[in-house]
């Protein structure tokens, strides 16, 4: 393991690796990534791989558009199949308020070049044969959203970064970060220390722990989010189906498995990753309600990961006041995977070329103290 680096990235999830990969591509390779487990250990290896551009704010929509563009090229660029399939996202609204939100979102999305359209329940049944639309008022459908397989996206980015000279250390846990005054001097791990003056905190749900090593309190809270996967079957479901009334989402992967989850309003913040019967039961009930033909489809496996949630549903990006060279790239909740390519790229530009991305001011940690928060309401899967 190197003993010094220009920049240390804590966290080998999709966010940390995307940044490492982009930095390396821009010629900045004196970077070490530290990951306490294997690649895919964190949320990035436990998510549903849903990639959508149906968002509510201009920034998010543009970021996701950029991500989709990058994901479309990723397999060829990294020489690693990510099995990205643009089968669309179909959002179901069961009440008037949700319906009008979808309608307003659609207008904004259309203006920004995302071809979302409102579809009637009948049309929705055409897109998803067998969909039970009783009680559904209207749906929003964007055919260019999609799903991918998360693991290889990480491996591909890691491969490119490594080939370009970045060092990625798995099974290496950061235990301390040392400072002199406001300056970072050293990152300490259970496998040795690395002298550096810059640290990126991309530790996902563990980010608050990393920040605390430097006396910085993040408002992020980890929440368990569970998910399941069914047996692989021949293609029969194109889009990701998501019911906004209870936060259910599921789609069919390239391998043919139905994969999805459901929000749980009763879940309390914790560092728990065990699976629960409660989730399995709620999810199966919801799947059966939405698509009765799933009744005889077998559930293979369930697991859990964390959503790293912030009070306003938006990430925490950029520098902090207390410590120089300590950069946040965390708080991605339930949509960090889809954001990662675009965020990684912008963060790399911002770090290296000082390109001004207003995000890094708007979403800095200081916003909470300043009281400048604007909640992103569309956080599902």
């Amino acid at each position, binding site marked *: 393991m190197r003993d010094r680096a220009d920049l240390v990235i804590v966290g080998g999830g999709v966010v940390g690796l995307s940044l490492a990969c982009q930095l390396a591509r821009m010629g900045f390779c004196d970077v070490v990534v530290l990951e306490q487990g*294997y690649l895919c250990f964190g949320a990035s290896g436990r998510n549903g791989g849903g990639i959508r551009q149906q968002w509510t704010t201009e920034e998010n929509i543009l970021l996701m558009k950029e991500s989709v563009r990058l994901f479309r090229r990723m397999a060829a660029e990294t020489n690693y199949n990510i099995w990205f399939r643009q089968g669309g996202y179909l959002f179901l609204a069961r009440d008037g308020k949700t319906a009008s939100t979808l309608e307003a979102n659609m207008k904004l999305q259309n203006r920004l070049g995302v071809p979302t359209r409102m579809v009637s329940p009948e049309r929705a049944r055409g897109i998803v044969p067998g969909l039970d639309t009783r009680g559904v008022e209207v749906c929003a459908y964007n055919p260019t959203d999609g799903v991918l397989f998360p693991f290889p996206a990480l491996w591909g980015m890691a491969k490119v970064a490594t080939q370009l000279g970045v060092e990625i250390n798995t099974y290496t846990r950061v235990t301390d970060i040392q400072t002199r005054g406001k300056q970072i001097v050293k990152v300490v791990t259970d496998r040795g220390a690395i002298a550096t003056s810059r640290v990126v905190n991309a530790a996902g749900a563990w980010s608050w722990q990393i920040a605390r090593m430097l006396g910085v309190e993040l408002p992020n809270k980890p929440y368990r989010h569970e998910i399941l996967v069914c047996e692989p079957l021949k293609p029969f479901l194109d889009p990701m189906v998501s019911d906004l009334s209870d936060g259910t989402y599921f789609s069919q992967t390239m391998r043919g498995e139905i994969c999805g989850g459901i929000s749980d309003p009763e879940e309390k913040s914790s560092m728990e990753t065990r699976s629960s019967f409660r989730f399995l039961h709620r999810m199966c009930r919801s799947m*059966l309600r939405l698509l009765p033909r799933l009744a005889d489809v077998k559930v293979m*496996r369930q697991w859990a990961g964390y959503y790293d949630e912030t009070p306003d549903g938006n990430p925490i990006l950029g520098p902090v006041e207390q410590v120089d060279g300590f950069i946040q790239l965390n708080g991605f909740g339930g949509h960090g995977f889809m954001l990662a390519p675009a965020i990684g790229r912008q963060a790399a530009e911002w770090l290296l070329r000082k390109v001004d991305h207003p995000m890094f001011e708007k979403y800095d940690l200081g916003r909470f103290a300043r009281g400048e928060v604007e909640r992103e309401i569309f956080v599902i899967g």
Partner: protein
Amino acid sequence: MAKTIVCRCEDVCIEDLKLGFEQGLRELEELKRHTGLATGFCQGKCCIAHAARFLARLKGGDDMVADPPRTRPLLHPTPVYRLAGELEAEPEGDGEP
């Protein structure tokens, strides 16, 4: 040369494990994710012991593979309809008379 299949469900052969190991995958959790080993219908009942033996030999001892990959429910693939019933009786709450 014919293939030696370690995991029949996912068609993982011994060459896949060898190559994975050469590429630096030293843990069952990693081999599992790269090859798909133990993620098929049998959920590892037929292959985990083989894969662990393979790794133990290369890493020099049984204690090098002390932990199996995290075992995820369900033990057997089970249809959705069987898991979606209405709960008939909730256990009694703590403070009940």
